[in-house]
């Protein structure tokens, strides 16, 4: 089963990394948006210039050992030379560098600031939970859409992300699109990002948030505007509600779900007795469209047939310490049945 967890260690991929160097679906140096491209450019500039500075400093130091013929300097000449070192290297060099850096560097961040625009960008709300992502589209036509661990955004236009933390501090970061912003309980932070063209990008929580910080991945996909709108339309409550209850074959699984899972997980269309809600210990991801999501457990497993059942049985081994109880009362066939039903929740 390990192959499911992590893709096979493959020599070609390894070589590809060596060759392309900067590539990678979380690489800052493989930008897919204007803001990230600006920063990457700034990085290359700084890296180049600072390498020169480093080489110069070390060379000066090394050469002072190698110099065989030392001209005899008078005290005054020594003083003048020393002043040249100190003023040139210690004052002028840093001040000039800082000046250039601020002039070119600070504007590089402008694109990520949520300043007012002529046509206000779409807003996507992202909330960090230990250890998953809640994503809401408050502006979707026909009503708010809620999903988890998957973020879909329109390509070629700026999008405003309003982020917060539900429990501890997390950090929202899509490296190939731009900088990160912390998700802090009680605060709402805003950042503006734009994907140049459709594509899939990696993202991962960037502020240490506890046991499973490593497994808090977000699958980000940028789509053409029309695809994006279609994607949102498919997830309208009315459609999802029928999806959940349409098949009688899964009725027993639904009952078990209502009894054990619905305290934390919402599935649109399921009626849950109030008594269950009152018991809700913590909020878990909304599962209304889980069958259509690319990963499970915030990036732990790839979604494929039987994956949900497998996850339900083994999630504490796959993602030790995650907040979902082990549910030992449920036998593997029952878990598998729930998984089979959830897989059908694919709009």
């Amino acid at each position, binding site marked *: 089963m*390990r192959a499911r*967890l*992590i*893709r096979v*260690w493959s020599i070609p*991929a390894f070589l590809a*990394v060596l060759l392309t160097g900067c*590539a*990678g*679906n*979380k*690489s800052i*140096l493989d930008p897919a948006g204007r803001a990230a491209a*600006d*920063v990457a450019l700034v*990085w290359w500039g*700084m890296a180049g210039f600072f390498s020169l*500075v*480093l080489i110069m*400093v*070390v060379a*000066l*130091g090394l050469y*002072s050992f190698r110099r065989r013929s*030392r001209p005899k300097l008078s005290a005054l000449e020594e003083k003048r030379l*020393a002043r040249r*070192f*100190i003023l040139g*290297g*210690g*004052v002028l060099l*840093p001040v000039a*560098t*800082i000046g250039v*850096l*601020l002039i070119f*560097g*600070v504007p590089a*961040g402008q694109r*990520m600031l949520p300043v007012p625009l002529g046509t206000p960008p779409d807003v996507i709300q992202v909330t960090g939970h230990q250890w998953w992502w809640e994503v809401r589209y408050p502006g979707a036509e026909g009503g708010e859409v809620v999903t988890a661990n998957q973020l879909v955004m329109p390509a070629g236009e700026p999008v405003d992300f309003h982020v917060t933390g539900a*429990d*501890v*501090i997390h*950090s929202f970061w899509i490296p190939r699109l731009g900088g990160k*912003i*912390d998700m*802090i*309980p*009680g*605060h709402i*932070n805003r950042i503006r990002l734009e994907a140049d063209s459709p594509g899939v990008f990696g993202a*991962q929580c*960037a502020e240490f*948030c*506890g*046991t499973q*910080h*490593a497994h808090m991945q977000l699958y980000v996909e940028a789509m053409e505007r029309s695809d994006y709108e279609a994607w949102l339309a498919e997830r309208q409550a009315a459609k999802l509600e029928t999806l959940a209850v349409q098949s009688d074959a899964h009725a027993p699984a639904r009952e078990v779900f209502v009894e054990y899972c619905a305290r934390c997980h919402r599935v649109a269309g399921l009626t849950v007795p109030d008594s269950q809600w009152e018991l809700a210990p913590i909020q878990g991801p909304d599962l209304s469209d889980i069958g259509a999501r690319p990963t499970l457990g915030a*990036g732990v497993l790839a979604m494929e047939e039987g994956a949900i059942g497998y996850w339900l049985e083994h999630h504490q081994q796959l993602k030790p*310490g995650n907040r979902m109880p082990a549910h030992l009362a449920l036998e593997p066939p029952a878990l598998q049945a729930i998984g089979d039903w959830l897989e059908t929740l694919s709009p």
Partner: protein
Amino acid sequence: MNDSSQDSSRKTAPEDTRRFLEDLERVWANPRGLGALTIVNHTTVGLRFMLTGMAFFLVGGVLAMLIRSQLAFPGQNFMAPEIYNQVVTMHGTVMMFLFAIPILEGLAIYMIPKMIGARDLVCPRLSAFGYWCYLFGGLILLSSLFMEMAPSSGWFMYTPLSSKVYSPGLGSDFWLLGITFVEISALSAGVELVVSILRTRTQGMALHKMPLFAWYILAMAMMIVVGFPPLILGSVLLELERAVGMPFFDVAGGGDPILWQHLFWLFGHPEVYIIFLPGAGIVSTLIPVFAGRPIVGYGWAVFAVITTGFISFGLWVHHMFTVGMPQLAQTFFSAASMLVAVPTGIQIFLWLATLWLGKPRLQVPMLWIFGFLFVFVLGGLTGVMLALVPFNWQVHDTHFVVAHMHYVLVGGMFFPLIGGLYYWLPLFSGRMPSQTLGKWGFWLTFLGFNGTFLIMHWTGLLGMPRRVYTYGADEGWQLFNLISSVSSFLMAMGIAMILVDIMLHFRFGKPARQNPWNADTLEWATSMPPSPYNFVSLPKVETRHPLWEYPQLPRTIAEGRHGLAAAFHGRREIWGTDPLTGKLREVIHIPTNSWWPLFAALALAVVCISLLLRWYPLAGIAVLVAAGFLLRWSWENGAHPRAAPDTREQPGNPPLHSRTLDGPGVWTMAVALLANGAFFLSLLFGWFYLWTISPEWSMPPESPLSLTLLVLAGLASSAGWLWLERCVRRLRRRQGAGLAKGLYMISALGAVQLGLLVWVLVLAELDVTATAHDAVLMVSLVYVMLHTGFGAVLTLLQGLRVGYGYVGVEAPLEPVVVRLLWRYNLGVYWIVVVSLAVLPRMIGGTT
């Protein structure tokens, strides 16, 4: 400098010299066996600090190896996630708090008196107390690791992750209590080093003549004094939140988790420079010696040190660029952070100029200085990159930052430290280190270090966040992580080799000759290894390079031809000199070996453990016991027979410090109050921060604090203060009549103030678990009450001491010290009244 010429008239006969040396040995003797626990001498305490620091370094190193083993391959299960998080947290905590700072303090404690020509630090018992606090605090913290309940929320303990809800175990408590305990040691070392450097330099050593190392340590110590209190306050508040439920950082109760980050980094950024400055001080000491010429631009170096110290307090926000702050603030802190490159650049280029103008010799200590140059400059340059906000948004909290931080800290501190260790080894042991093993050790460490961390910048740029316990094989990070892990083991081998080299040298090293590196500073004028009193006699030094200009100095010092060459009175004596000019002012007789530091630290350890275990009654008792020990310790001061067996002045010497009105005790109190003031200002910052920024702050429309009672209490306090001022004025005029009675009355006024404050507290009916507002009020009132009580008790004791004859017209110093506390208390009190009770009435609360 007219060392021998001035004192040569006082040539002593050989048998006199012998008797004098016997006296000196007896007075300064370090007891053996169990009695060794009472040693307060700075040489021993400094070595203890350094050895303990080394031991913690090995622990931290093993933790680092565990981390690199886990990350060597993707998807490893070498450690469970929870254990990994504990290991990561403890690696950072141990390296920062139990290795870097203490070992540098130890070096400073060991070296400073020797460099400034003193026999000991000015408060030897405080050094010993600091050491015990460090040892016990460190052991308590470390024990958590072996019980698998170590802190696991990262070494900067961000709340809410570290709060009771999300870290229910004892881990965070271990961190908060243990670190606070260890910080007592940092603060005591800081206070003591400041006062020693300012007030006990040898005769004639003006401020601008003291070795550069002393400037660096002075800056470091001042920064400890001002920089550590914010974290102590933060730790106290967070522990109160965890233990009692006072919601300082909980949004629901009107607190704000960002306040913790401010308090942490208000400490955390200066701390980076607290660690770097002594390292740079070592570099500034070694480069001139191995270049064979004085440093170029001494004044520039001093300027750079002081500027670094100041700028470092204005940069903390650059650790928080991603918390969502106004852009203007970000740009300001961005520019300020880059600006620190200027003083750093000045230092680097004056080192280069010194090498350039000298004839440098490449010996093992210099190898490390070269390693420093490469590693630290690289780290500094990536630091400038990180100060650029948009770039910071990208790489913040990735392995790029991990790499940067290690370059700065290992480069700025570890490389110079090892260079310094090699350099000063002959002083510690009287033997020379080997060249071969030392070179191997350096190259392995250097290559291993760069192999580990240079590549890690790249790992970070490819998007690997810090503190992840594992990563997927499809991320493209595996090769780089593997290189880092393999290299880290290379580095570990290098460090092992250095340790072996150092251990072997104690046995096989060639005996060193006096001043083996041909250095210029006074520590090489001591015997090797040094005696507890360092110098048989204290020379007058008016040059920056005493040993270059007067190579015979070690001999004339040992022959007792300089100052304070008498010990038959049984006192441990050092010079007290003017802070600026180094003019002789008094003879300071310093306390001798004592059990009280150990006992007081043990009592505090009981406090720490009982707070951990939530045994509050025991904690309360232990606090009282600790206070008792500390007061008992302070009892042996002034003219107390155990502090000064013979208080007569010696003809030709300046007065004893207890007979002056400006002895080092006043300075110690002043610097301690500076630390206290930093603590108080942090608290005040917290109050105004929560009031203005916290998202769900609520404040009752009417302040619960009774203004009438507060003003009455303030009047009592003001009256006490005025009276105390009058007492001191009379003492100055040598009028001691009615002193004891006056002091009792002043103490009573303090008690009245305390009583009124208790009344205020009772009337206020604060609900400290419901709102941050009430919680801050409670903490502030308790702070004021503790100080009032402390002032009253000290004044009462002064009254008693007058009765015993320990204090009076002949020994007027102590009331001056207590007066300083009263002034501070009064100032703080009125600020509290205005901020907590008056301003809310004027501006009005919200609900």
